């Protein structure tokens, strides 16, 4: 029993660090480390840097152009990237639709889509949730009817993350309304430029535009864009959701944000002393840091077990619950750290280039301006990717057997 990475894993980590030092644009990492928004260009530029290094297909095997890393290497890469302030991987292409293509797609589909995902040429988004189909995803109603060599799609998807940037959407659609819920679903790849698609922004509680509604009105989708067989889409969808769960704990991100919390608490003052030295606040930081440590070791235990028998098991639900709770705690502490200066709400402050109004004294420290919005935004973590209540259902059914 040992906690430390092996020598090979350590030298891999060094390789990742060197790459990050050399290739990560400081203008981008500055934004990430301080909690400012990134744009489409930031994400795609980073994806292209990864691609040039041969790392465009994180988690992909070599035969599809991936680096062929094991789960420990992938964990190291994601942790180091997060700590260095690299943009998070937009999962919809690389981590979600790509494994579906590799496992269930035709050779033609693989050749058509995978290289552009790796190269950062195509931006993908997810068409799963609907207004009436959230946790109960299989109740989805978006209809697709075969008409010649096209499906005609009608319906509405929602909570579509960054769909405003997307070139493609992967969609679950109902092709057999009479079959049992799970049996009438088909998995389609749809060009976002298709006539009949409308993307409407949803403004979230933090004022941000992160998610959308996507409406389909007689959208024609060539049959060749269907994954696998008609009415077998649920199988592919479940497979995809399994892949969404790799590196679900977000240990690296939480470490990065905890460091930011400590930087802020060191600069804020309470009773004339740094807030970091306030016994009550220090205890709350210590509490979340300890919880993160326990999560990190739990995550390493899962990875270590995966080395023997691959495939993310239901243990990922434990990581999801704890990881999201910890990230939420950190964001809440950050907001509370700045006291009353968490209150001024200027949505424009979330953008990195924002300057204070030069005719006025700045209202509170610069770093305070994003913290309440971030706290609001982070509430999503326990809702998306299978709400934490769904995760508890999974634990109680698949691990405990109730």
């Amino acid at each position: 029993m040992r906690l430390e990475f092996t020598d090979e894993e350590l030298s891999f980590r060094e390789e990742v660090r060197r790459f990050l030092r050399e290739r990560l644009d400081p203008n981008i990492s500055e934004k990430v480390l301080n909690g400012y928004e990134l744009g489409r260009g930031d994400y795609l530029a980073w994806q292209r840097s990864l691609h040039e290094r041969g790392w465009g297909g994180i988690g992909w095997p070599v035969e599809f152009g991936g680096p062929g890393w094991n789960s420990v290497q992938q964990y190291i890469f994601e942790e180091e990237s997060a700590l260095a302030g690299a943009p998070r991987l937009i999962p919809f292409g690389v981590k979600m639709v790509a494994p579906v293509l590799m496992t269930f797609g035709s050779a033609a589909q693989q050749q058509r889509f995978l290289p552009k995902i790796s190269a950062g040429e195509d931006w993908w988004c997810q068409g799963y949730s609907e207004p009436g189909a959230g946790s109960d995803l299989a109740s989805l109603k978006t209809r697709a009817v075969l008409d010649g060599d096209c499906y005609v799609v009608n319906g509405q998807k929602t909570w579509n993350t960054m769909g405003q940037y997307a070139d493609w959407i992967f969609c679950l659609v109902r092709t057999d309304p009479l079959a049992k819920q799970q049996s009438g679903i088909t998995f389609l790849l749809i060009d976002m430029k298709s006539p009949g698609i409308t993307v409407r922004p949803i403004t979230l509680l933090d004022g941000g535009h992160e998610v959308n509604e996507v409406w389909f009105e007689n959208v024609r989708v060539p049959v060749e864009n269907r994954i696998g067989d008609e009415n077998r889409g649920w199988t592919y969808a479940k497979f995809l959701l399994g892949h969404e769960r790799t590196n679900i704990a977000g240990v690296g991100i939480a470490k990065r944000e905890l460091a930011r919390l400590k930087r802020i608490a060191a600069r804020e003052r309470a009773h004339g002393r740094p807030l970091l030295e306030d016994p009550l606040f220090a205890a709350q930081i210590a509490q979340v840091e300890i919880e993160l440590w326990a999560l990190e070791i739990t995550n390493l235990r899962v990875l270590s077990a995966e080395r023997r028998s691959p495939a993310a098991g239901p243990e990922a639900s434990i990581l999801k619950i704890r990881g999201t709770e910890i990230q939420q705690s950190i964001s809440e502490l950050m907001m509370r750290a700045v006291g009353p200066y968490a209150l001024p709400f200027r949505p424009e402050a979330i953008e990195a280039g924002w300057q204070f109004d030069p005719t006025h004294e700045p209202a509170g420290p610069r770093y305070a301006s994003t913290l309440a919005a971030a706290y609001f935004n982070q509430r999503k973590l326990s809702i998306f990717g299978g709400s934490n209540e769904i995760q508890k259902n999974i634990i109680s059914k698949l691990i405990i057997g109730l």
Partner: protein
Amino acid sequence: MNFEFSDEQRQLHDVVERYLGEQYGFDRYQSIKRSEAGWDASVWRALADLGVLAITVPAAQGGLGFGPVETLAMMGDCGRSLLLEPLLGSAVIATAALRKFAGETAAAELLTALATGEKIAVLAHHESDARFENRRVSTTARRIGANYRLDGHKGVVLHAAAADVLLVSARTSGEADDADGVSMFLVPRSAPGLVLDAYPIVDGRRAADVYLKGVEVPAASRVGSEGHALGAIEAALDIGLAALCADAVGVMQALLDATVDYVRQRQQFGQPIGRFQALQHRIADMLVHLEQARSMSYLAALRCTDENVDERRRALSAAKVVIGQSGRFIGQQAVQLHGGIGMTDELKVSHWFKRLTADQLMFGDSDTHLQRYAALTRGR
């Protein structure tokens, strides 16, 4: 990075699990707990015969020379079986305290006697006014001719009455709270002037307040150099803390298992109560807590002998915080989900709950360790 036990460690675990499974059922535990002594010499002999008492004794003293991971491998079963015998106190903590001084005759001889089970030793360190502070030692040891004379009061010394020898810390110089000036003495329990106020603690294990009233011991019973024992004592307590964490995780696993079995069979409203989502989610929460606690018990075992004292303490404090909080949650929820029957003395659940409660109150509670952790991480 590897969280597997070696074959040897697994064998050790299997030996302990099999013995306790066969010989230390709930009835046996109950009868031992109700006995006058509160522990059973025949169990102790059996543990000695199995080699369990020798695992961390150095080979030169007739032991197996194993470390904290081997201890981890067997402690979970001791918790699950609610072992009442002084394994933690004697085979783990006192053994660790003596190991540093194995080059000295008195310590070496005692280690050999501990390995064979011929003798039991416990560390009598914390004082009645010290709460959980390791440095707060006001018991004094004054050199008088060829002897030391010990005066003081040690509080809640686990298994003191079962011990043949107490490892007593006492000041040979300095003030309470000084790091220097603490020495360690081997004091026979039968020494004149040594008075025990013995009692059961909340979970049925035994402890005592130990009064030293002019206890005289020969100078040769001092272990280690004069005034420099605190480091060894704290190191031994840290090794003990790691073992306690493993014991507690065994109890948590047992409580989760028992609760899952219970909600499967208990029928209300015409169905097993385990079908109710409110209960399923609570049990999922218990599992999440258990796995965090298990992770930290591994951390504690892997770090408790770290040469870097701050790093060692940081890890152990983090572990004890998680073990304490998880143990509290799992213990309370196990009783809650069992309902009325969980409140009874008849069910093992209440005994496991009390053991976890006692574990929370030993070696520093969660608040103490949270504060210590915060102090150790300031500026990191």
